[in-house]
């Protein structure tokens, strides 16, 4: 069981015009053992670079990769004992399904009986036993990725690395394979490191999410940790939806926004703060009075199980969810309606106001 640890890792790429691009900036990280880990972040955040450095496919500029406390930074991938699943499958086009899966065991010089046992077991596991003689180009995208998974698992490694394995698949198939991946990792007590830019995917599949931005780790924790207690404005915004208000501190637990006083459970430290609220924590009402913030409904998204309203509060867009019962159909809000809203103090996230909120929220 390799315990994976990253120490003070930096990766600098040489740009085309001789400029230097810092893909990873002094990363320190312990991968949770026997758990499903996800490297999550917007494109260009360095997550794939980090994964490929763990694999050994690219070498870091400085820093170390430790497997079981041993430095493997200089080891090539073939000496690291890993299973790797690729974004675009990378199934060998000249080998049939069976020989794609047997590639690893054959290279590692296992006996014929062992090879046949390993291949058959893994093809069974991913549901491709019937297609053992098919060529990769005869398979659908979903099947090819199962083949990629079976091939990686056949390396018998306990460390499974996955580089955006679901992003080239249809959404529905991708969602289904999520559960398959998690089931297999849990069944064989593997340590998985899965790279994705999809927050939804990370939430459903992971035990442990490592959220990254611009070559740095923003926050690490369980999906619930990251959703309920995001440490930064970026984390709050990236992990699901969130509306932000620029407010002023009145007392330790009281802030003011547009002349309305807002009670907050978290202690307010700074004079200028950003308050964040998730849409399901925003309570709407038709009552209009000076103790409530109000705005005009601009956009209505019908999500089936509920409505998402986008409310314009003097240029600031606030997102709110609301569910209506069938009998209350006449009370539904329309575009242009004036509505007010309020929140419970414990539902409000408090952050120090940054110099530039848009820059903080941007994905690049």
């Amino acid at each position, binding site marked *: 069981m390799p315990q994976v640890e990253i120490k003070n890792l930096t990766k600098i790429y040489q740009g085309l015009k001789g400029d230097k691009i810092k893909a990873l900036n002094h990363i320190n990280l312990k991968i949770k053992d026997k758990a499903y880990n996800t490297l999550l972040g917007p494109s260009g955040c360095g997550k794939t670079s980090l994964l490929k450095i763990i694999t050994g496919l690219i070498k870091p500029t400085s820093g170390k990769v430790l497997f079981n406390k041993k430095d493997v930074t200089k080891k090539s991938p073939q000496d690291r004992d*890993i299973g*790797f699943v690729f974004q675009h499958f*990378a199934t060998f086009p000249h080998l049939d399904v069976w*020989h794609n899966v047997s590639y690893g065991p054959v290279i590692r010089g296992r006996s014929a009986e062992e090879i046949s046992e390993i291949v058959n077991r893994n093809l069974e596991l991913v549901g491709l036993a019937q297609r053992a003689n098919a060529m990769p180009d005869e398979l659908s995208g979903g099947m090819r990725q199962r083949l990629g998974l079976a091939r990686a698992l056949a390396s018998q490694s306990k460390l499974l690395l996955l580089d955006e394995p679901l992003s080239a698949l249809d959404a529905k198939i991708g969602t289904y394979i999520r559960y398959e991946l998690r089931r297999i990792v849990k069944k064989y007590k593997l340590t998985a490191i899965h790279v994705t830019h999809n927050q939804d995917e990370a939430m459903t599949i992971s035990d442990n999410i490592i959220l990254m931005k611009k070559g740095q780790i923003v926050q690490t924790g369980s999906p619930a940790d990251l959703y309920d207690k995001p440490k930064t404005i970026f984390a709050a915004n990236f992990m699901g939806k969130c509306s932000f208000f620029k407010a002023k501190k009145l007392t330790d637990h009281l802030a003011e926004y547009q002349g309305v006083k807002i009670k907050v459970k978290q202690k307010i430290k700074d004079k200028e703060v950003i308050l964040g609220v998730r849409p399901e924590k925003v309570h709407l009402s038709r009552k209009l009075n000076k103790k409530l913030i109000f705005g005009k409904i601009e956009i209505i998204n019908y999500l089936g199980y509920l409505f998402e309203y986008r409310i314009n509060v003097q240029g600031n867009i606030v997102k709110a969810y609301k569910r209506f019962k069938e009998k209350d159909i006449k009370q539904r809000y329309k575009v242009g309606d004036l509505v007010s809203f309020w929140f419970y103090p414990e539902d409000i996230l408090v952050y120090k106001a940054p110099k530039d909120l848009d820059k903080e929220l941007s994905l690049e």
Partner: protein
Amino acid sequence: MLGQIKRGIIKHLSSVWFVSAAIFFIGIIFLPAVYILSYVLKAENIFTADILKAVSASFIIGLIVVLLDFIFGLPLAWILTRSKSKIVKVIDSLVDLSLVIPTAALGFSVYLYWGSKYGLAYLLGLDYGLFSAGPILIILLHIVFTLPYMIRSIAAAIVKIDIAYEQAAVTLGAKPVTVFRTVYFPLFKDGIIVGSILSFTRSLSETGATMMVAGVFTTAPIFIVGLKQAGQLPQAAGASIIMIVSAIVILFISKLFLGRKKINLEKIYPRAADSLLKLKIVRDIILGLFLIFIIFLPTTYLIIFNLTNLQLFFNSLIVKSLLISFAIALIVTIINLFFSAPIAYLIAHNKFRLGKILDSLNEIVLLVPTSALGLSLVLFWQQWLQGEFIILILTHLSFSFPLLVKPLITAFKHIPLELEEAAYSLGASKRKMFMTILLPLIKPALIAGSIMAFMRSLSETGATLAVSDQIKTIPVLIVDLVNQGQLNQAGFVSAVLFVIAFIFLLILKHNKFSKNKL
């Protein structure tokens, strides 16, 4: 101890392979090919008026041929790639025929068809050939063997273009001809340039077939061969130097053009060209007639000719030439096979930043006219080596190696990096990865390239004439026989080459990778 040494050797085997391939390429292929340039310093008065006349004749013919290739090649390439009809598919495979057929045999066939009373004249009931030997016949001949280069280069570019571009342009209101002009033409400009260079240099370089249809007219390669055989080395060297330098200049000018990818969108005038569309049927008929009468019939006329002359004789001369030609082609192809993959890999992946340099060197050798190349090689190797046969093999290595390397470069470039990474992640070493993933994947290109190189060696005339005095390869023999007026014997030998070419063409067409096992 012994085991350790053995393991060490195996471990470094691939590096030894790569290094020896690089040495082979520089020392055996490239340097001898351009060695003749050093003659500029040695000899005096090597540029005479005769040389300039022959060289300019070659250039003018080349330009006319390229222009005609372009005019007919563009619409043909378009139809061949975009039409789904079965007849077109058959025509498609026939286009490559004149690529693999030895030019000497081709030249003879074209001569019979256009220039003799047995050809088109016979069909028309005339008693004399339509064209006498000279520039017109040379142009007609050169179109036959250069047009496939133009068609294939443009077709390759067309295939690469996403059909979504066309759909996007149509949804934006562009009519078909406008789509062609504003979307496709700029996008496959590169294909046209590549096709033009290949056609032009091929036309500049061809010797054997041209000799048969030239009469008293002289092109640069004929001139070089003639001077060499007359023993006038300095003048032959002068003409060779001009041809080699112009090949290098052409290469670098075209690289400049190919580098620019900007497309000028200001010149989108719709209307006018669209009226051309109405002539669709006329256009198709014209193109069809062109293909049949200018390309296929001249190419295959030889077979028809032979069916009427069934007295086939084997004299010892023919058998000897056949054996020599096959031996050379086989040896050359095997040596080339061994060294081509590493060089192509170095070029495709730009290893050690050598890619661009090696690629340019490879292209220079590819573009240098073979008679000039042959002269250069003979001057280079004569210093150390005796024996025509060995020098002949070294010569054939030189001009066929780039032909094998080119398709391999493309094949390597098309293999996604992910496949290599996948092999590494599954525990493969560099050597294992190369043998189990890359080599099987480039196998089709390897087979195709070998066949091209083999046929080129079998059919080459100019370089062989420049090198050998005694040894006669098959195409040299054909040229001799035609010049001696022994048309029946020449016809028989040419027909043998035709049959071989047909067989190879069939292999080329069915050359896709089948299931592999480790």
